[in-house]
């Protein structure tokens, strides 16, 4: 009896790992494809799917590998790639900091204060979550045009700094993690409201801060439509747009394209590795409760 159980347990264990490994392989194959494509020379590109096969060590044609695509990417002046990287870093980081700040303050106000407009405002924020972003593309563009903010970073960053989703998340987080008595105690001690926010409240919702910072950084880093529509001067383009432009109509330099894509996802991967725990904790804490 016990032996049979152990056997069936081993079988399901084995199956589990096999399944997971298969799923992991399917998930990771595009990444391998990406990196190996970025390293292959133009001639070796279509000779095989991953590393070019040949007579070298381990059956790989090492002469078919090169770093020239990365070199061209950063030194070719007409591509403006180095500048695009800086633009993306600037846009994503400034955007995420401003958005997180606004969302945290907004969520704080809605969660921890009793005031007349609290209920209607909360309802308004929740309702706006349903509005699909594309609906606002056209009128938003018209508004930015009227404000004279077209083709500027301000026009790109400012509209998104009020994330309703962020307020919703922070409201949940504040409701769960910020005890009222602590706030009362600080007030009795004579602590000013703003000082209290930064020194007391923010550390209490640190996981959510980290999670939201990363989400918005990610969203801004990968954002393609808005920069494409609002920015027109090529020197202002972020990475996502610069890479999309590498795809030509007649002939595409695939090695260059793949190298550009590697450059665009590497920073994000690193950031995620650092913020992993906070991110997942923060994300789930905002959603699981009703």
């Amino acid at each position, binding site marked *: 009896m016990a032996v049979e159980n152990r056997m069936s347990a081993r079988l399901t264990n084995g199956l589990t790992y096999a399944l997971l490994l298969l799923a992991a392989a399917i998930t990771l194959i595009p990444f391998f494809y990406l990196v190996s494509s970025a390293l292959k020379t133009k001639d070796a590109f279509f000779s095989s799917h991953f590393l070019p096969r040949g007579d070298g060590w381990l059956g790989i044609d090492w002469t078919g590998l090169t770093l020239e695509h990365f070199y061209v990417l950063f030194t070719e002046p007409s591509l403006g790639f180095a500048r695009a990287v800086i633009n993306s870093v600037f846009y994503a980081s400034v955007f995420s900091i401003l958005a997180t700040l606004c969302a945290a303050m907004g969520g704080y106000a809605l969660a921890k204060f009793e005031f007349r407009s609290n209920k209607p405002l909360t309802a308004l924020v929740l309702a706006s979550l349903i509005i699909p972003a594309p609906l606002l593309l056209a009128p938003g563009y018209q508004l930015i045009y009227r404000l004279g903010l077209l083709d500027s970073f301000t026009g790109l960053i400012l509209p998104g700094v009020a994330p309703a989703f962020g307020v919703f998340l922070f409201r949940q987080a504040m409701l769960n993690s910020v005890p009222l008595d602590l706030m009362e105690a600080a007030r009795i001690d004579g602590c000013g409201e703003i000082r209290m926010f930064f020194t007391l409240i923010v550390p209490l919702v640190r996981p959510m801060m980290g999670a939201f910072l990363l989400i918005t950084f990610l969203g801004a880093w990968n954002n393609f439509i808005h920069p494409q529509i609002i920015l027109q001067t090529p020197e202002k383009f972020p990475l996502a747009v610069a890479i999309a432009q590498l795809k030509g109509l007649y002939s595409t330099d695939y090695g260059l394209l793949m190298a550009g894509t590697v450059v665009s*996802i590497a920073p994000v991967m690193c950031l995620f590795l650092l913020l992993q725990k906070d991110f997942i904790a923060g994300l789930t804490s905002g959603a699981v409760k009703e």
Partner: protein
Amino acid sequence: MPASTSHPRWAPYVFMAPFLLIFCTFMIYPLVQSIVLAMQQTFGPKTTVFVGLKNFRDLLGDRFFWIALRNTFVFAIASVAIQLPLSLGLAMVLNRPGLKGRALFRLIFFSPSLVGIVFVAMMFALMFHERDGLVNAVLRTLIPHFPPEFPWLQLYVMPALILAGLWMSVGFNMIYFLAALQSVSPETLEAADVDGANRWQKFRHVILPSIAPVAGFVTLFSLIGSFQLFELPFILLNGPGPENRGLTVVMYLYQYGFETGDLGYASAIGWTLALILVGFAVLQRLANREQ
């Protein structure tokens, strides 16, 4: 938890102010403005003409719009229908007690959602190449008599999009399900064991009801997200694709608004989309209430 009453009166308003200011300017005002816009025809934001409900009447008879709507519906429903069981299944496998390397697997499955749609589109454009693409190479080894050219991006556009979308989103939803599974109370599970319930019954009567709220949330947001499909086919096919097979509602909106300059028609399309999504949200609310 009761909110504080001993605060200075200005406090909540000051904290809400930055958010509220930008929210009203860049979300409420354009929302209202979009109703006006939807009743105009424009050639860029400068040149506008009032046309009343003509845009909506034209939409009803616009064959491209219906093609876009059909494509979007098919993608959204097929995507969500395939994705959710996959995410749930993966989460359940990952949730098994005593699994080694759970954190690593979680990271691996989540990584596709980090990379952005431009990356996915570029990668899959190469991988779906009809002759030399990776996908066809794999299929060729698995299926005998597989044709030497399988034009994913010309004839089988929708399956290609669904596959690419799956790769991107399964891991993300899996995280939500994982968290939900971990909050299923162990006592109820034990009680079910004691009652002699088998695995399927445990799943149906204990696990499913307890993750229902999260499942509802994930379904709704996945549907809403899928309905807004645009960048993936746009970059993958360099436009709507052959015979408009990759045309989606948001792509049509973009083409009219930003390639032709008719922001009015684009707004009308946007409102139609919004109404459909509001319909879904209302349905979900009703479904929740019945439970």
